[in-house]
């Protein structure tokens, strides 16, 4: 394979590497930083990368099957990159004020490179490397606001829980290596048998590892605290990019490596899915802090997504990726509103949103659309995302799970409407004053609202995703 092919194939990773090196050099050689210029440059280069990612179809594998690339993987990387771009834009106002703006970008790009490797991995070794690369800088990011105790606490919780889950995952991987003699996805899938108790045992460990990353009940306990303590930009990254990438590789591993044990993991997943959405819902109802609230709502969403993962057909995989895309728009939209308000006056309680429509109608409408999309109410895209997940569940005949899921959706509507009620109905004597939103955050809101309103109706998006998906 020629050098050009390598470059073409690993363009995302090389790009992230290039940015990291560039930022390091800037840090070393420049005395006084022009942060807005650097941030602008990063945003611009992310746009260029997104555009470049549509050129050519560099499918195949390198490093002896360690690193794979195909249409689905590129799509997932595009979604990750796009979400990162949105998060950079969203955080622009906040980042400019930070002393350590450069370090933030550095760490975020290290996470990004880890995610790229994670998504592309074709071997458990690469998979583990990617996972760790994506996690440890993220914990540093969670601690980014040194001054706040909460931030440090969040980072501590995150690093401990992820170390714990990594240990379990590693143990599972070592068992896989011990019983099959390989770590390569394809080779493992050939040798793996569902009759061997030890091998099925490894499945449980791998599941636990993933469950931590996707924050599936009962491995969700870190989520709310970390979401609440981290800066909003990091929280959005955690809830959108990190979760999306982990879900994607989770599907890949299940469908590519463990198709033989499908009967076993379907049962586990149905159970986990039912518990996750119910517990997430019950906890979300009682939250007063909006970031904690969104944390539990994202746990519930993970429960819905598991329906699609369980169904294991090309259509269901397409629905999961489609849902992740829609979820990206809606969640980033919600977090952008949260960050705009929190940056100006530090208000993060749902009670502070009372009467928001009187002073900031556009922010309220953006928040309402985001929340409706999360609740799956037409005409927002969330409706389509959720119905497709349920329909894929119906095609697989998971009727009981569907009943639980649709009842949960009614329950979830109650707390999503609480936010809408606070903004539109409740009276407040001193509401959040009128905020003049900065241009980049406005751009994010416009992009997200357009996504929320349009993606559902344009069947082209779903068709495109479906053409790249695979199942068992």
């Amino acid at each position: 394979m020629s050098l050009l092919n390598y470059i073409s194939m690993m363009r995302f990773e090389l790009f992230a590497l290039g940015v990291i090196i560039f930022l390091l050099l800037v840090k070393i050689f420049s005395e006084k930083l022009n942060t807005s210029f650097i941030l602008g440059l990063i945003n611009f280069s992310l746009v260029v990368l997104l555009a470049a990612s549509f050129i050519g179809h560099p499918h195949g594998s390198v490093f002896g099957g360690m690193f794979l690339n195909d249409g689905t993987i590129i799509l997932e990387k595009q979604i990750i990159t796009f979400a990162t771009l949105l998060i950079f834009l969203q955080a622009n106002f906040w980042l400019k004020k930070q002393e350590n703006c450069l370090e933030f970008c550095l760490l975020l790009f290290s996470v990004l490179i880890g995610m790229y490797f994670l998504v592309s991995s074709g071997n458990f070794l690469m998979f583990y490397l990617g996972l760790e690369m994506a996690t440890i800088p993220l914990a540093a990011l969670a601690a980014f606001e040194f001054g706040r105790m909460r931030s440090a606490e969040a980072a501590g919780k995150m690093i401990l829980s992820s170390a714990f889950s990594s240990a379990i995952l590693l143990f599972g991987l070592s068992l896989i290596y011990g019983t099959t003699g390989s770590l390569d996805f394809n080779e493992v899938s050939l040798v793996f048998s569902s009759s061997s108790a030890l091998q099925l045992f490894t499945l449980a460990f791998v599941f636990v590892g993933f469950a931590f990353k996707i924050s599936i009940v009962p491995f969700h306990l870190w989520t709310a605290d970390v979401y609440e303590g981290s800066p909003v930009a990091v929280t959005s990254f955690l809830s959108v990019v990190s979760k999306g990438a982990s879900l994607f590789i989770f599907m890949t591993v299940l469908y590519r490596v463990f198709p033989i044990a499908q009967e076993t993991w379907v049962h586990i997943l149905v159970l986990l899915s039912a518990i996750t959405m119910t517990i997430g819902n019950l906890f979300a109802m009682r939250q007063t802090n909006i970031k904690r609230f969104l944390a539990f709502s994202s746990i519930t969403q993970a429960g819905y997504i598991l329906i699609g993962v369980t169904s294991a057909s090309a259509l269901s995989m397409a629905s999961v990726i489609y849902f992740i895309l829609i979820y990206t728009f809606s969640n980033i939209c919600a977090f952008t509103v949260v960050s705009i308000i929190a940056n100006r006056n530090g208000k993060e309680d749902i009670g502070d949103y009372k009467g928001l429509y009187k002073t900031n109608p556009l922010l309220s409408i953006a928040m309402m659309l985001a929340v409706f999309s999360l609740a799956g109410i037409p005409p927002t895209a969330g409706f389509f995302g959720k119905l497709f997940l349920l329909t894929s569940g119906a095609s697989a005949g998971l009727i009981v799970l569907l009943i639980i899921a649709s009842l949960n959706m009614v329950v979830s509507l109650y707390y999503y409407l609480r936010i809408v009620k606070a903004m539109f109905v409740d009276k407040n004597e001193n509401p959040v004053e009128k905020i003049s939103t900065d241009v980049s955050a406005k751009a994010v809101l416009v992009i997200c609202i357009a996504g929320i309103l349009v993606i559902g109706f344009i069947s082209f998006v779903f068709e495109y995703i479906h053409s790249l998906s695979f199942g068992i």
Partner: protein
Amino acid sequence: MNLSFFILIPLLTLIGIMLVNGKTARVVAFVGSLLQLGLAIFLLFAYMQERGTGNVSSVLFEETHPWFSQWNINYHIGVDGISIAMILLTSVVLVGGVLVSWKMEYQPKEFFFLLVLLATGAFGFFISLDLFTQFFFFELAVVPKYLLISVWGSGKKEYAAMKLVLMLMGGSSLVLISILGVYYYSAVGGVVTFDLQKLAALGFSHEIQMFLFPMMFVGFGVLSALFPFHTWAPDGHSSAPTAASMFLAGISMKLGGYGCLRVAMVLFPEAAHEYAPYIIILACIGILYGALVTVKQHDIKMMNAYSSVSHCGFVILGIAMMTKTAIVGAVLQMVSHGVMTALFFAVIGMMYERTHTRMGDQMGGLLKVMPFIGTVFIIAGLTSLGLPGFSGFVAEMTVFVGAFQVQDLFHRSATIVATMSLVVTAVYILRAVGISLWGPIKNKEFELLPDATWNEKLAAIILIASIIIIGTMPFWISDMIAKTTETLFSAVIK
């Protein structure tokens, strides 16, 4: 005739409302709703003409576009006699609702936006023939109600709004489960589809029907206040602002009835037969219970809200009796009750705006101060108790005649129980008219109250005209419905 206009016009109206400022929104909404009414009447004539030329296919003006072809989801629309009746009802009530809220002071732009959004959902629901598309519009017509009630409502509005939305969404989640079940079993049968006609032709096995029918029927039934899932209706109706009450009782409850009839019964005819006795019992309880509770109400808006529960019971009763006449009666009752209740809520809203009370016993002698409003109130009341000449009589009579055609003790006694409610209706209607309109003027301040303004008069006249048209010459509409009933429910009719 291109049916997509029924969705396009409200959409354009919505965009128009977004673009204009403040109170101009009402003009846009009014023009949009008038256009829609004109289109509905045009559709009626086009339909009649097409039928006149001998076109006997069950659905006319069909249109299919693939939407999500991987799931076999199509944008499939078409109309038959029943949906045309519903479309006419929706457009009449919409015009009435916009006119009644003409003087809306508080955030008029948002108010009209949500009202037209609800109407978009209703129109889409009535014309779609694909379960997915239909469900999309169905849910579209639920959630805006939350904002309408909790922002512009009165009384314990937040509680009522939340209760209403959660109960309706609970119903819609049952509908969703049954739709997904239908999809799954159609896939097992080899035809993966959401298409209503194809699914009806498929014919599900007995067990599947017995499993899915109750979910779908109860799910839609929640919307049409099927006992014991009616509790959202009194709270919701009485707390909602006038136009929203009109819409809620006039159209939303009919979404439920239409779904029970046009979706659940068409898909699961066998199960419908087996479950019919239970449904009849529930309907009878609802009719009688609703009427008796109404007698206890002093709040006239609450009175009409409970009487809606009773009247919608007739719809369910007619559907479950499963004779041709009874089903035609049920559809007529949907239309008649829709217009009547919209008129009632409109006039109650007018009285409340002037007297600032909804308690019947605090009013009195209002007919002297506001003759127009008083007369409209009386007309609405008389329609509600089924006086010949008004639509209520035609509809209820058809239901009773149809119900009595089933010759066995159970059905006959159920019919008799249901008719007993008419006496109770007379009690509460006549009493409400008596204490609020006749007699001496109890409150001196009421002597100076103004009568209806032009917009209120126009709204009332449009609604009364529809009531009288159906009441005096019902055959054009009942024939249209009867023909559709014959073709659609050949498997069900006894």
